[in-house]
């Protein structure tokens, strides 16, 4: 059962006390908000998040407005706390007829907060992920490979936006279906496209772990005979006089290996 705080206070004390209490709550809220702000700064800095987000577009645009990502998150949290205390204070002081308003705002505030946080984190994580993937792909000298980091970035942005919109109560069913279709496309078509590579790598993992043959052994696979030069996850390279066979591991598995002993 919910206790009616304003009435309780008024029955225990007087109307003035209630008002004083409201003011006190406002002040405490201010202090609390400030502490939260300080705490966010300290934690984010200590956990190294501040360094991690250095140089992202979001951080840079935040800096253009004279603040930083950490500042924004800190302010956001502080504002959230302060807004909460204001509502409580108004409620106790009965300044507004807030019964309806209060319940709606109280329900809405955390959602709004999470939505903003989702957007901020989404922007930063998306960009960071793109950067990491780009670094990884640096050795791939293929201009088309630069599409992949972008794709990942916008996928993360999309999901962040979806979370934010769902939080503030916008109908997201259509967007969700789009996401599902996209994920399905990536998984299904990707699986289809990489089918051979996947089976080869599954076989390759077995070959690498158990090593039925190793570099330097003479083997025969499907009438192709030679000395093993290299075994990796996808292929086995065997070399005979003047010829080098590159055999998918899947085929090694399917047709078996003859080890030649002498």
């Amino acid at each position, binding site marked *: 059962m919910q206790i009616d705080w304003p009435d309780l206070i008024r029955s225990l004390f007087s109307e003035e006390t209630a008002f004083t209490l409201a003011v006190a709550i406002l002040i405490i809220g201010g202090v609390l908000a400030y502490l939260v702000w300080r705490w966010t700064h300290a934690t984010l800095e200590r956990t190294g998040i501040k360094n991690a987000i250095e140089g992202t577009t979001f951080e840079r645009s935040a800096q253009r407005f004279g603040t930083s990502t950490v500042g924004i998150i800190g302010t956001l949290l502080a504002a959230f706390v302060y807004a909460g205390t204001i509502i409580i204070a108004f409620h106790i002081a009965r300044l507004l007829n807030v019964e309806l308003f209060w319940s709606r705002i109280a329900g809405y505030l955390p959602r709004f907060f999470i939505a903003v946080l989702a957007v901020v984190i989404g922007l930063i994580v998306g960009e960071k992920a793109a950067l990491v993937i780009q670094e990884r792909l640096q050795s791939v000298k293929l201009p088309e490979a630069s599409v992949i980091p972008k794709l990942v970035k916008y996928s993360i942005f999309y999901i962040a936006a979806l979370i934010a919109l769902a939080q503030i109560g916008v109908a997201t069913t259509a967007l969700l279906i789009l996401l599902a279709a996209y994920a399905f496309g990536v998984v299904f078509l990707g699986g289809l496209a990489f089918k051979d590579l996947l089976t080869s790598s599954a076989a390759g993992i077995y070959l690498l772990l158990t*090593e039925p043959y190793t*570099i*330097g052994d003479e083997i025969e696979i499907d009438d192709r005979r030679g000395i*093993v*030069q*290299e075994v*990796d996850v996808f292929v086995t390279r065997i*070399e005979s006089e003047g010829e080098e066979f590159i055999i998918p591991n899947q085929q090694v598995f399917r047709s078996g290996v003859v080890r030649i002993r002498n």
Partner: protein
Amino acid sequence: MTGLAALLDEVVGEIDAILLFTRDASTYNLFSEEETPTIVIAKTNAVGADEFVELPLEFTNVHGRIRFGLEGTLRQGLLAEGDEVVCLTSSFEENQIDTVVRVRGDQFTQTGVYDLFANSRADADVVRDVFEVAIELGKKGQKGKRVGALFVVGDAGKVMNKSRPLSYNPFEKSHVHVGDPIVNVMLKEFSRLDGAFVISDGGKIVSAYRYLEPAAEGVDIPKGLGARHMAAGAITRDTNAIAIALSESDGMVRAFKGGELILELDPEEY
């Protein structure tokens, strides 16, 4: 100052190309308008130059660096034998061009240093990683004591067939590649074992403890080098591998290919 200016004009006059040893984009931009072709030689093509030669090691020695760069440009066909070039590089401060050298394309007899990295069976990255391991090992030794080591890189199948194990292979069923962070420590520990390390084209450490049994006829290496170097020279003659030897007696890193000594480095300089 007219004498100095005249001398400098003479040094940089009538050249066919500029070899720029830098990774600094602003330095490169100074030359982007230049009519003479500018060839960038560095570890990475950070400036995005069209004509670029990759430097696999940080040659601290200017002579070695220019030699490698020149050979690389010649092998890539960016220069012809008789071309006159000016090399801009740094002798003391890193990333600060302070040295101007004028050389002819055929100044040095080609030793194949560039081929050692670019046209070996093994990947250039693998060769570079092995060099780095050897240099590191040469610098620090094992527990302060000097060690010797022999790495045979590439054509591992053939090398394995031309060698026999001295003892159990510690790398059996392991999948360690040179360049993995753990490798330096591991090789340092294993380097007290006698015998050679065999490394495949892709950089996998196939075996340690190998006794190489190549035919040693026709191996031409400088007299005075020990059995390790003779074995290194011989195995590269018999197979398509290259061999990188760290000498225990004088601490030098030497690379062999095709039975010949190609490159000699002092680890202390790196």
